[in-house]
């Protein structure tokens, strides 16, 4: 097997009384599209920042393509392009120059650096803003600038720390296409996100972090199989109480009425839905609408990160049992990623 893109052993970091990384262990294969999920404060950003030297770990080790991030920091940083969660862009120069400088800091000569800057801006569709300063751009454009800055050094490992926060649907899709293409051409991608469907759609493996540790690593599919889907059938003449449902057998977890909607929670809802529809039809129910929401990864996520997490309990509640799920907050809309 080839050298892993990231290999982390027993990484620890505390700030005063907060343990941000608590013996973190993680293995990210070269070439993968790896998702890092976890509630606010789980330690995702802290972990990412140890890789490029913005955070110094208290103990443990981390290596990027086999290069220790402290003793061989130059080789490690050479491989990494980071689009950070918080903006940290040079305010004194137009964005084209900012990118060219970044390329220069990584060893590209002046001409080549300018070419790469132009190319990176083109890649994110910002070429016409090349002479603007960062502060003159909209929030979504700023996101694109930090992505372009990560790309300008032609990294083997592209790290995106919540790249789609505050980004509109169209741009989000463009961004997905860009990074998917990069991944297909061999770039390893590490993505953190609160949009669970984003991870589901893009990643071939996800790690779920909580309180400075990885609590689970699996493919999105494997995680989803453990979770439950929600089938919502809107009925023309809803009964007062939920009818007993036979379809789905063991897969069905609960059956409830919510106003005029029958809500069936089941594992592998895609398989249960057809039987359910046939059964209801046979029993003379007339339906107005049918919806299967596959938010199961989210539920697995909540289950994995919820236990003992008193401070995050509120967040978790809304996702499991209310009849209709709204995106939870502006920062953590969990269900609208792919629609």
């Amino acid at each position, binding site marked *: 097997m080839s050298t892993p893109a990231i290999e982390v052993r027993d990484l620890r970091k505390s700030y005063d009384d907060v343990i941000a990384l608590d013996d973190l262990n993680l293995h990210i294969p070269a070439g993968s599209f790896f998702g890092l999920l976890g509630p606010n404060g789980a330690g995702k950003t802290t972990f990412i920042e140890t890789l490029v030297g913005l*955070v110094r770990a208290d103990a443990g080790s981390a290596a990027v393509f086999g290069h220790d991030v402290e003793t061989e*920091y130059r*080789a490690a940083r*050479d491989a990494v392009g980071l689009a950070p969660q*918080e903006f*940290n862009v*040079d305010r004194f120069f137009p964005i084209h120059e900012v990118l060219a400088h*970044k390329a220069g*800091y990584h060893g590209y000569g002046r001409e080549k650096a300018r070419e790469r800057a132009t190319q990176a801006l083109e890649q994110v569709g910002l070429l016409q803003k090349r002479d603007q300063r960062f502060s003159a751009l909209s929030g979504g454009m700023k996101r694109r600038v930090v992505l372009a*800055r990560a790309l300008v050094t032609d990294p083997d490992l592209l790290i995106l720390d919540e790249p789609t926060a505050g980004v509109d649907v169209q741009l989000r899709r463009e961004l997905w296409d860009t990074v998917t293409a990069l991944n297909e051409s061999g770039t390893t991608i590490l993505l953190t996100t609160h949009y669970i469907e984003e991870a589901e759609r893009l990643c071939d493996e996800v790690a779920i972090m909580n309180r400075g540790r990885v609590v689970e690593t699996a493919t999105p599919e494997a995680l989803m199989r453990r979770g439950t889907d929600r089938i919502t059938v809107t009925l023309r003449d809803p009964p007062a109480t939920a009818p007993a449902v036979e379809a789905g057998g063991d897969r069905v977890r609960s059956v409830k009425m919510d106003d005029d909607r029958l809500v069936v929670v089941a594992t592998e809802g895609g398989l249960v839905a057809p039987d359910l529809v046939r059964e209801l039809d046979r029993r003379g129910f007339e339906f107005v609408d049918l919806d299967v929401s596959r938010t199961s990864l989210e539920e697995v996520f909540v289950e994995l990160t919820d236990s003992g997490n008193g401070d995050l309990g509120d967040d978790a509640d809304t996702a499991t049992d209310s009849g209709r799920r709204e995106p939870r907050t502006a920062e953590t809309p969990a269900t609208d990623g792919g629609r």
Partner: protein
Amino acid sequence: MSTGSSTTQVATLARREILRFIRRPYNTFLPPIVTNTLYFSVFGIILGSRIGSVAGVSYIQFVLPGLVVLGAISDAFENASFSVFHGRWEDYIDEVTTAPMTHRGMVGAYVFASAVRGLLTAVLIVGVGLVFTAAPVTHPFHLVGFLVVTVVLFAGLGVVGGLAATDFDNLTVMNQFILRPLVFFGAVFYSLDVLPPLWRNISLLNPMVYMVDGVRYGMIGVTEIDPNISLAVLTGAALAVLAINLVLFRRGFGLTK
């Protein structure tokens, strides 16, 4: 992927640092011109005509080297401390610190650019001085040597200040309480000879005194201290500060969490 050329990396950072102040001429070049025009008018013309000659030259000629040093070190210090601190404050210094650059290269680029700014200011002040009086160069080697060592020393101190500051106010405080007193008791405006022996000896603890004296020697050939010893001591001080810069960058002081 290659690590790229170290020289290119450092040159890019030095270039960025220099462009930052070159592109803001009203901030960079206008203040020393205005300030020094005022100094020369007051100290040179208005007071100077009453003071007569000091150390064998006219007062305005005596003051010129002091003003050159004063301007050069203020700007070298201010540029380095501001640039490093502002980069930390707005976090964009991360663009540099996450690059595969050597720590020596980072320190070198920041210090070099700020030293260049100090030297440019020195040239400007001489230019302003020429409007009021002659600006002789008696010992060019000493003149250049003292100026270079001086701006490097204060650029290096500025880097320390920029790394240590936690607030913009800290920078003001460093300027007000460290730089100003050194400058005003640094024999810019008076000759050490006019001081009683005790004060003269205390003054000799002030590094400014050696810089001003050295540059004065380079320009008008007048000195109160052996210039070669001064130059050696200042060079030692500059190297020591550069070493401190390097240690701070290696440790990530003020740069890492």
